[in-house]
Structures are given as structure tokens and as C-alpha cells.
């Protein structure tokens, strides 16, 4: 097409047959083209639309794709202008609707008291509402002073909501009345304030009505009361007449003894419990089997704990690794101290059980008849105070008595008391250990067993108690006051821990810190100057061996200590070749003379004589150290570094054999040498890094054989494909919605601005008008004044 826009328009109009000659007929074509005049009117409109569109190319937007040749059919044509306008109109409609509703149609205003106040507790809210309710009542009664305010209670279906008992009674008498009485006075409050006269009238009416009802009610009540009184008075008369009539009752109770017995029997039988089939008595074998199974189960659990599998399950293994790196972020949440529930129970006298009870401790059944008077000991001092008058052998009876008196089922709070008492027992055992007396041996053993069973029942308390004791030891250790440790009770404490807890666990809340503390003790022992340090050290080595008898873990401190201990005792230590030793051998206070002889066998060492530095004791200690070494071979031989571990000991033993050829030393040496030989044969180079080969990730792009640009995804996994599709959709939707929301808010802002501007203009116009009129008036007045003035002057 050529020519100006106007010419083009004309041409197209003409081509459409809208202007110019309309009735010309084209040759060879019969009504092929209908003119608008010939067809319906709508056609004309449509054609006009089309022409308009053609002449406004900016209304159309065609999306252009980069792969046009492939996607021709998918060309999208849109009309942004029109769709924009449509959107605008929609928004305007919505906006207008919203604006017209504004301040007219209300929402719900929550006027309830404290409903949205998060600071108040439920109880406080209730209280506040109650107060409010009472206040409204009070004020109401003063405003509409009815004679009796009692009637103005809130009701619900005739039931009073107030707490007033008397009102409640009245309601029961006249159940329907109070409903009316209650609800009616409440109504006038809602009356608008504007119509004063009518309200007063209404009020008067209501008051009159209520007074009327009240009077009637009172009358009714009086009547009822009167009737009841009358009935009461007549009662005797009626009864008298009734009694005078002879009764046809069977003869009164003249039962014989036999009959009575029979009756009793019948009653008893009726009350008897139905016999339930008893559990079958199990045979010995079955019991044995059960016990075995339980034992096996426990053993399997212990095995798991030893391997540390529990930890891995709970993600504990990661924690272990993190310990070193985040050394500072400990103690984040403190263990909540268990409150000792002893507030009100202090004065409460326990109800003692009457029948003798049976308590089972460590497989031993103890029957106790006695109960204990007085308080459950809550501190060590209480305990010492309570037991000072009791003979040693009766203390166990006393302790059992306490447990019996304060059985948790007997009274509330007993559980806590027994928990505290168990803690006291631990302290008491340690106290006994410090002030040791051979009479106490049995008691200590008894209490040790008791503590063990308590650990099963009160794990938290006992754990806390043992850890407190460990902390005490740690504090003493930190002071590095060598005369203050080890205390005799420490020996007992660590033994008690070993006998009570499962020390073979990889990680144990009590056993692990205990082992660490023993390790520290072994490190700082002054064995060259203090004989009881030497004794305690060897004791602790034995104890650690006992701790690790199942798990067989390596304890470097014990290895080091044993070597030091042996070197401190062996005769003529300077002669030992020192290249393989950890400590340089030196003659010490306790070095034995070269002519001493070791006894054949060793009697048990006495803990009480640990400060004995006599020659005999030293010989015993040396022999004990050798025995301990012998015992620890079982742990050493599990280690991969057995040869390195045992080397110094081998040297020392070889040296010792020269002096003690006729004791257990040569036997130990032979064992050591034998084991070393075997270990050397068994030794293979380490292969710690024999891991499965790890695939190296490749980054070459994958070539797709049948590539189709229409296909969005080549993911072979159907579900994943679905998911990504959905994800894509969500993303699109989200974008769209966001766009809409943005447009909405822009529109709203625009409209508001417009409104504001309009208001502003209106206001100014109004003001201008007013000022104008005032000025005119002023001018007129002024003129008049002038005129008047002129006139007066005349």
C-alpha cells in the first residue's frame, strides 16, 4: 500500500465496501462478498474493528523466538494495550467497590477483655473478666435501682452463671423466671442514648414489670413454704393412722445359728473373687532358659555400647569429632538441678505399712519387720547423726528400714526423698571409707550393692552424685597439694564406680570422667617420695585393668606408671640400659636392696597399710607391680603396638631376673618374650587407607541422540521429571501473582494520590470561594460604611 494514512484508510474502507458505491457487482462472482448493508449490522462493526486494528500496529505485540524456523506455529500475538486497559478497569471496579464499602460495612471488633493481650495468663484474664462483670453489675444496679439486686445475675438457659449460692437456690425454685428477670434489664443498656424520653418510658415500664414479677414470685414462694409447713404438721397424724393398721409382715428375725452361718457363707461366696486360672508354674529349665535369654540380651546391649554403636545411631560420633574444634561452646544448657521435693512433706508423718515387707537387693531377699521413726536423712550429717547410736551390724537394717518406710507408693514425695537418700548413701560409704574400720567391711559391701540397685532406679540422682564426687576429686587434684591426695575414700570411690557401672562402654557418663581422673592421678603421683602414692598408683593400675577387662582399651598412663613404679622399686636401677625406657632410672627412697628375695605368692594387700614403708611392704608392692604387669599383658597383646609397649618392661624384667630367679618374675619374662616373638611374626605393614575407590566426577556434556527442542527434559526418572515440572509451574505462578500484586498496589497508590489531589484542589477552591465571598461582603460593608460616613458628615 502506498500513500498517506488517510488515503490508505479510504482505500481500505472502500475495499470493505463501507464507503463509496456499494451495489457494484463483481464479474463472475455471485454475492461472493456481502456488503454490510446486505448482511447483519454486526458485520459492519467487526470489519471496522479489523480496520482499526490494522491501522494501529502498536496495539499488537508479537513474541519473537530465536528459533523462529522451528517454532513458527507457536508465535504468540498479544494486545498489551487492551489487556492493560482491561486490567485497569477491573482494578478500578474493585477499588471503587472497596471504597464504597469503607467505613460502612464493619468487620468484627473484638472488645473482649484482654483477648489479644499475650502478657496475661489465662487465669489473670478470667479474673479480669470476672471483675469487669461484677463492675458492670454494680454500676447497673446503681443506675436502675431495682429493689433487689440479687435477680440481676447472668444466666445461661436458666442456669445462673454467678457464684452466689443463694441466687442459685432461688433459680431452682423458679427456673424460668430468673431467665426473664436476668435478660430483660440487660437490654436497655443497648438502647441508643439519643432518644431519652422513650428510653425512660421503656425503663419505667420494665421496672414496673419486674417489680410485678417479683412480687408474684415472692407470693408463690410464700405459698409453697406455707404448704410444706402444713404438710409437715400433718405428717405425724398421717403416720399415726398408717401405723395403726396391722401389718402382714413375716415374723421378725428369729434365725437360728445354723441359718445365720448359712447366710454368712452365701454372702461370702457371693463376695468371693472368681478364681482366675493361675500362671503355669515354670519348670527349672524354663526359668533357666529365661534367665539365660535375659542375660544374653543384656550382654548384647553391653557389646553394642562397648563398640559405641549407640553413639553412632544418635549422631554421637559426629559430636565426638567436634569436641576438639569447638572447645569453647560447652555448657550451653546446664543440667537442670533436680529440685528436692521437700517443701510440704517435711512434716507429713509417713504411714507405715503394717505387714512385713520384702526387699530384694542384689539377688538377696531381706525381710524387714522394723520401720524407722523420724526423718529420711537428707544430708550426710543427718545420716551420721542417725546412725551414731546404732551398732555397725544394725546399720544395714536401719537403711533397709528407711527404704521401707519411705516406699514411693506410700506417700507423695517419697520418691524424691529416696532419691536424695540414695545420694546420701554414696556419701556415707565414702565417709566409711575415710574412717575405715574392719567391722565396716560387710556394711560397705552391703551398701555397695544397694547403691548399684539404686542406680537402676534413680539413674539421674546417682549420676549427679557420682559426678559431684568426681568434681571434688578434681578440685583437690587441681590444687596440686600432694599431701591432700589421694584420699583413702578416693580408692573406694573409684572401686565403687567400677563395681557399679558398666565400665566397658565406649562412652559412659560416670566411668569416662572417672578413668580420666585416675589417669591424671597416675600422672601426678609422687612415687619417689611418698609410699602411699606408690601404693595408690599400683592400686589404680589394677583398677583400670579391671575397668577394661572386657573392652581391652589402651591406657597410656597406666603403662607409664607401671614402668615408673617398677623402676622406683627394683634394686640397682642404674644398671638398666636406659635407651628403651621412658624414665631415666635413678635410685630412690624405695629402691630395694640387691639381696632381697621376693616371696613365692602374694597375699592380698591391705588398703589400711598403704602408708607402711617397711621393707616387706615394698617387696610386696614390687611383686604386686609385676603381677599387675602380668595381668595387663592380656590388654597389651590386643594392641597393634605390643612390641613397642612391652619393650621397656622386657628390659626391666630381664634386669630383675638376675635378683629374683626363684619368683614369678622369670615366668612373666618368659610370657613376655613368647608374646613378643608371636607379635613379631604376626606383624604386617599397616593398610589403613584401603578404601573403596572413589569415582571422579566427570564434567563432559552428554550428547543426546534424538534431540527435540520441544522436549523440556530428558530426565529418565519419571518422578523427578514430574517434580521439576511442578516446580517450574509453581515458579511461573508465583511470578505471575507477584506481578499482579505489584500492579495492584501501584494502581492503588496512583488512585489514592489522585484522590488526595482532588481533595486538595476542592479544598482550595472552596477556600478561595469563601475568601472571595468574605471579601465581597467586606467590600460591601466597607462601601456602606464609607457611604454612611459620608452621609453623616453632611
Amino acid at each position, binding site marked *: 500500500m502506498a500513500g498517506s494514512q488517510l488515503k490508505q484508510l479510504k482505500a481500505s474502507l472502500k475495499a470493505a465496501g463501507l464507503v463509496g458505491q456499494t451495489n457494484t457487482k463483481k464479474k463472475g462472482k455471485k454475492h461472493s462478498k456481502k456488503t454490510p448493508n446486505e448482511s447483519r449490522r454486526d458485520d459492519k462493526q467487526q470489519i471496522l474493528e479489523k480496520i482499526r486494528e490494522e491501522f494501529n500496529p502498536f496495539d499488537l505485540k508479537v513474541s519473537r523466538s530465536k528459533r523462529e524456523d522451528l517454532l513458527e506455529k507457536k508465535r504468540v500475538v498479544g494486545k498489551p494495550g487492551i489487556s492493560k486497559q482491561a486490567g485497569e478497569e477491573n482494578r478500578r471496579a474493585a477499588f471503587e467497590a472497596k471504597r464504597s464499602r469503607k467505613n460502612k460495612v464493619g468487620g468484627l471488633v473484638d472488645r473482649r477483655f484482654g483477648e489479644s493481650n499475650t502478657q496475661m495468663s489465662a487465669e489473670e484474664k478470667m479474673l479480669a473478666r470476672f471483675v469487669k462483670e461484677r463492675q458492670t453489675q454494680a454500676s447497673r444496679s446503681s443506675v436502675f435501682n431495682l429493689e433487689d439486686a440479687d435477680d440481676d445475675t447472668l444466666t445461661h438457659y436458666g442456669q445462673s452463671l454467678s457464684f452466689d449460692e443463694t441466687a442459685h437456690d432461688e433459680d431452682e425454685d423458679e427456673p424460668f423466671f430468673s431467665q426473664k428477670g436476668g435478660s430483660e434489664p440487660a437490654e436497655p443498656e443497648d438502647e441508643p442514648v439519643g432518644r431519652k424520653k422513650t428510653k425512660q418510658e421503656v425503663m419505667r415500664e420494665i421496672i414496673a414489670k419486674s417489680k410485678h414479677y417479683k412480687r408474684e414470685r415472692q407470693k408463690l414462694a410464700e405459698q409453697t413454704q406455707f404448704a410444706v409447713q402444713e404438710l409437715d404438721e400433718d405428717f405425724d397424724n398421717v403416720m399415726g393412722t398408717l401405723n395403726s393398721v396391722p401389718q402382714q409382715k413375716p415374723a421378725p428375725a428369729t434365725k437360728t445359728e445354723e441359718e445365720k452361718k448359712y447366710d454368712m457363707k452365701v454372702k461370702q461366696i457371693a463376695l468371693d473373687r472368681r478364681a482366675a486360672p493361675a500362671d503355669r508354674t515354670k519348670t527349672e529349665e524354663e526359668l533357666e532358659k529365661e534367665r539365660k535369654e535375659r542375660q544374653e540380651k543384656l*550382654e548384647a546391649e553391653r557389646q553394642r555400647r562397648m563398640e559405641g554403636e549407640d*553413639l553412632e545411631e544418635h549422631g554421637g560420633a559426629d559430636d565426638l*569429632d567436634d*569436641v*576438639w574444634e569447638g572447645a569453647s561452646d*560447652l555448657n550451653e544448657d546446664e*543440667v537442670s538441678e533436680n529440685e528436692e521435693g521437700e517443701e510440704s512433706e517435711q512434716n507429713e508423718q509417713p504411714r507405715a505399712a503394717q505387714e512385713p515387707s520384702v526387699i530384694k537387693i542384689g539377688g538377696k531377699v531381706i525381710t524387714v519387720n522394723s520401720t524407722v521413726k523420724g526423718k529420711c536423712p537428707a544430708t550426710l550429717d543427718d545420716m551420721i547423726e542417725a546412725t551414731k547410736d546404732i551398732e555397725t551390724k544394725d546399720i544395714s537394717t536401719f537403711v533397709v528400714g528407711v527404704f521401707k518406710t519411705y516406699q514411693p507408693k506410700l506417700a507423695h514425695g517419697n520418691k524424691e526423698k529416696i532419691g536424695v537418700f540414695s545420694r546420701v548413701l554414696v556419701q556415707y560409704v565414702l565417709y566409711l571409707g575415710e574412717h*575405715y574400720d*574392719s567391722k565396716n567391711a560387710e556394711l*560397705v559391701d552391703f551398701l*555397695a*550393692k544397694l547403691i*548399684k540397685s539404686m542406680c*537402676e532406679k534413680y*539413674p*539421674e540422682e546417682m*549420676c549427679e552424685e557420682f559426678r559431684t564426687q568426681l568434681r571434688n576429686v*578434681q578440685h583437690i587434684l587441681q590444687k596440686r597439694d600432694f599431701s591432700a591426695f589421694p584420699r583413702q575414700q578416693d580408692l573406694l570411690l573409684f*572401686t565403687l564406680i*567400677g*563395681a*557399679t*557401672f*558398666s565400665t566397658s562402654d*565406649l*562412652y*559412659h*557418663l560416670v566411668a569416662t*570422667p572417672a578413668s580420666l581422673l585416675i*589417669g591424671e592421678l597416675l*600422672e601426678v603421683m609422687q612415687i619417689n617420695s611418698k609410699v602411699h602414692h606408690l601404693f595408690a598408683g599400683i*592400686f589404680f593400675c*589394677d*583398677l583400670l585393668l*579391671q*575397668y*577394661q577387662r572386657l573392652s581391652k*582399651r*589402651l591406657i*597410656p598412663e597406666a*603403662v607409664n606408671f607401671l614402668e615408673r613404679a617398677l623402676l622406683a622399686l627394683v634394686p640397682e636401677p642404674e644398671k638398666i640400659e636406659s*635407651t628403651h625406657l*621412658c*624414665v*631415666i632410672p635413678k635410685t630412690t627412697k624405695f629402691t630395694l636392696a640387691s639381696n632381697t628375695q621376693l616371696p613365692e605368692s602374694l597375699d*592380698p*594387700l*591391705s*588398703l589400711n597399710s598403704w602408708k607402711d614403708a617397711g621393707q616387706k611392704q615394698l617387696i610386696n608392692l614390687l611383686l604386686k607391680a609385676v603381677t599387675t604387669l602380668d595381668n595387663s599383658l592380656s590388654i597389651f597383646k590386643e594392641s*597393634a*603396638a605390643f612390641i*613397642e*609397649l612391652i619393650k621397656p618392661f622386657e628390659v626391666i624384667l630381664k634386669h630383675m631376673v638376675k635378683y629374683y630367679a626363684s619368683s614369678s618374675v622369670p615366668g612373666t619374662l618368659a610370657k613376655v618374650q613368647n608374646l613378643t616373638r608371636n607379635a613379631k611374626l604376626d*606383624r*604386617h605393614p*599397616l*593398610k*589403613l*587407607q584401603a*578404601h573403596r575407590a572413589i569415582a571422579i566426577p566427570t564434567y563432559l556434556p552428554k550428547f543426546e541422540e534424538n534431540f527435540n527442542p520441544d522436549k523440556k527434559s530428558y530426565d529418565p526418572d519419571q518422578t523427578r521429571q514430574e517434580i521439576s515440572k511442578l516446580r517450574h509451574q509453581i515458579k511461573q505462578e508465583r511470578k505471575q501473582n507477584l506481578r499482579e500484586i505489584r500492579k495492584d498496589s501501584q494502581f492503588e497508590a496512583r488512585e489514592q494520590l489522585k484522590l488526595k489531589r482532588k481533595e486538595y484542589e476542592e479544598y482550595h477552591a472552596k477556600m478561595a470561594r469563601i475568601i472571595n465571598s468574605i471579601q465581597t461582603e467586606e467590600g460591601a460593608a466597607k462601601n456602606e460604611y464609607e457611604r454612611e460616613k459620608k452621609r453623616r458628615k453632611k
Partner: protein
Amino acid sequence: MAPVRRRKAAETANEPGKLTIERVKELHNQIRESPKYYNNIAILIDEYKSLLKEFGTDTNEDLNILTRFVSLTLLKVFDHIITTKQLKLTSFENEQKETVRKWLKSKYDDFKLCLVETWKIDIDNEGVYALKMDNLDSLMKFIKIESKHFSSNKDEPFFSNRTYKLVLEHLLITGNLSQMLAHDATIDNFLILEFRESYFNKYWDLRYFFFSELRSILETEHDEHTQHLIVSNVITVIKPQPLYDLKTPDQTMYVDNPPKTVSNMRQFRSTFEKCILKLMNLKLLPEQYKAFLLILHKRVIPFFNNPTKLMDFLTDSYNLGFNVKDISLSILSLNGLWELMRQFNLEYPDFYTKLYAILTPELLHLSYRSRFFRLLDIFMSSTHISSAIVASFIKRLGRLCLTAPPAGIVCVIPFVYNLLKRHPTCMLLIHCTERETVDQFDDKERDPAKTNALGSSAWELEAVVHHYHPNVGSLAKIFTQPFNKYRYNMEDFLDWSYSKLVDNELSKKFKGELAVELESWESLFGEEGYLKEYVY
């Protein structure tokens, strides 16, 4: 300068009545009024001396207050006299004035002596402490005044060395060796601490002259005890902070116009150098010896003109450590040696052999181990060390772990990991597929290059996996896992101790389970007991 005390009976010069504060005030006022009352000075000084004597017998509040008042008054008097230049020597003077001046001068010296003498009072008492502190402050004030007014000309720079020397002479022998703290040989001496905080650390000229005076003090003969005291006090003074900032020396002066020489850093360094060398050549206590080694690389070497002068001392002490089998000495001197090597290119023969010799079993038990590991980390960081040496170190460290406390093992494991990462050849130690022969490691060989450690395996490190402490065990497991981590940060592992580990364990939360021993025993001790070989 030996203290000469002229004893005059105080009572004869004064009326026998008790000295009171009013009386002191009166005497003071008279002195201020006119020079004819100058005899009052002598009275006051004598009074002061007699008061000090009383301190030995009894101490009460009043006596204390009075004594301090008298000393304060005397301070004021002499302050006045000095500022009015009555002590100053002028060329044209009549004889009478000269006599007065000489007399005043002798009194003044006497008083100063009195003040320093008080430091010898050996009574533990708040009052005595306060008195001693007062006297330190007074003496320092005299130094300031003297330096201002005793110069030959007005505006001529001057520093009152004589008084300063007097002060130092007495100050450095205060304190009690029993108060010496064993770990760093500093002394818990409040006078020295006060001197350090209020004067020494604040003013450069005091620091400068401190060492020049110290040098002359050290030239005189002292008995061994005094020597130890002086050394400990000097260590206490110089330990907490460097003498001056090497980049921007701070030049706050105590006296108004100090001699020019104080800004001569070269001069200062050479004096300092001589002092320290002299101190080191004294007969030191073992703690002091270690303390010197401890502070050497940070507090001493940077302020030497010629730090190589310390070389002999350091190499000697390094070797001494091996000879007396106290490797802590070697570890400490290693720090200083490293500083010399780094900055002054000190050549040290057989360095790695010596380093290897430090790895004795006691190393991991020492408290200096973290210090050593920091240094070792530096020495082993070179990738040019032969793998044989590195392997020897790994093997040796592994062996130490077998007898070490957990805190020591915790240092070694990540360190070895880093070494393995840096020297992949050494992975042979933990993973070897070819060889099936015997262990070729020679643990008696002293030279790490010849131990043949690469022909061995680190079984010791595998043994640590079964350590009784679960965290140590799991840490050791890193050798069995793929070496994915670039390196471990050693600082996380160096400063562990038993107490930290135990605290860590005891702070773990109770999670509702407490495993109890399955076996049960009839008793704790004896036959049938938990521990069979012990009885009560």
C-alpha cells in the same frame, strides 16, 4: 655508697614530750618562716629515725599516721629548699652560705637514706606497705625535682643519676625469694610492681637510666642471695611488656629536661645488652634460667644491638638440656635460637638431629609441649625436608603416644596428619601394600635421616585408636579415613589438659540412661570381690 648513719639521740635535741602532729606542723611552719630554724630539719629527721625504730617493736595506727606525716613534711621542706636553689653550688659564694649548703646537703642525703632504709623493714602490715609505697613516691619525686633544679645552668639538660642509683640499689634487693613464682621466676614484690606500673612502663628516660644504673650496680660484688633477688626483680620489671615499640619509640619523659643521650637508641641497646649478658652470667636459679629463656625471644633479642652475642648462651643451654636430661631447657632455648636463625641467619649444624633428640617420652608430659609443637610445626613446614626425616619424626611421635596423657596424644595426631598431608611419601607408614618384611625402624639411631623409618609402619598410631578416652580414639581414627581434609588447625589441639577434658565430660547432659555393670560381686575387695588382690 654505703649507708652511713649518724646516730644522735633524738630525745636530747628535743624536749622529752611525745611528738605530735601539731608539733610537726609547728616545726614545719618555723622552717618555712626563716632559715634560722633550719635546725628543725635535723630534729625532724632524728624523730623520723626513732619512729622507724619503733616500727620494729609495735605498730599501731597512730604511729603509722605520724610517721607518714613526718616524712611528708620533710618532703615538703626539701622540696622548698631545692626549688629555692639553696642546695645549688654557685661559684661566688660567701663561706657562711657554703657551710649552710653543705649542712643542708648532708641532711638531705641523710633523709634520702632514711627513706630507702624503710624498705628493709620486714613486717607484714598494711601500714608498713603504705609507708614503703609513700617513700618510693617521695624518692621518685626528689629525682624529678633534682633533675629540674640541680643542672649546672638553667635549661641545661640534667638527670639526677645519683639519686636514681640510690633508689635502684635498694629497690632491686627488696622482696623475698620465697615469694618467687616458680613458673616464671617473677617475684610477687609490691614495690617492684608499683615501680614498674607507675614509673618504669610509663617513662622512657627512667627505662633508659634503669639499665645504665643497673650496669654499675652489677659491677659491685654481691652475695648469691642478693644476686638472685636482683635477677628476679629485673625479670619482673621487663617481663610484661616490651621495652619500647620498635617502630615508634614512645618518648614520654619523667624529668623535664633529660640529657640528649636518652634518645640515642644505639647507646641504650648496648647498655641493655651488657646488662642482660652480665645478668645471665651470674649464678642463676634453675627457675630464673628458664624464665630468661622464656622471655628471651620477645623481650630481649629485639632490643639487642648484636643478638648474635646470645648465640653462645642459647646453644649452650640447648645442649645443656640434653646433657642434664632436662629437655624443657632445650625447648625453651629453641625459641630464642629460632629467632636468631630467622633474623640473623644463624647457621646451626645438625639442627634436625638435635630436634629429633628432643622427642623423648617426657616431652608429652611437659607443660611446654604446646610451645614446642608450635615451633616444630614451623620447622617441619618446609616441603624440602627429606621424607626419611619426616617419617622418623612421625614414628618417634607415635611411640611417645603410647605413654602420653590424652592431652599430649591430642597434639600429636593432627600434627602427624598434617605431616602426612604435606609429605605424601610418608603415607607408606600407614598404608603399604608391597612390603611383607620385618620392621626396619632403628630406634637407637640418633640421626633422623638414617633411622630407616620408611621401612616401617606406624603401629603405635593404630594402637591409639583403642584409647580408653572415646574422643581421643575417634580422633585417631582419622588415619583410617580418607585424607580429605586439607589440614588441621593445630591451635585447636594444643591447649588441652586433664581438667579441660574432665570438665568437658562432666558437663555432658544426662540423657535418661545410665548403664550398670552386668556382673555382680559379693564384695568390693578380697576373694569373690571386684578387686581380688586387695583387702581392707
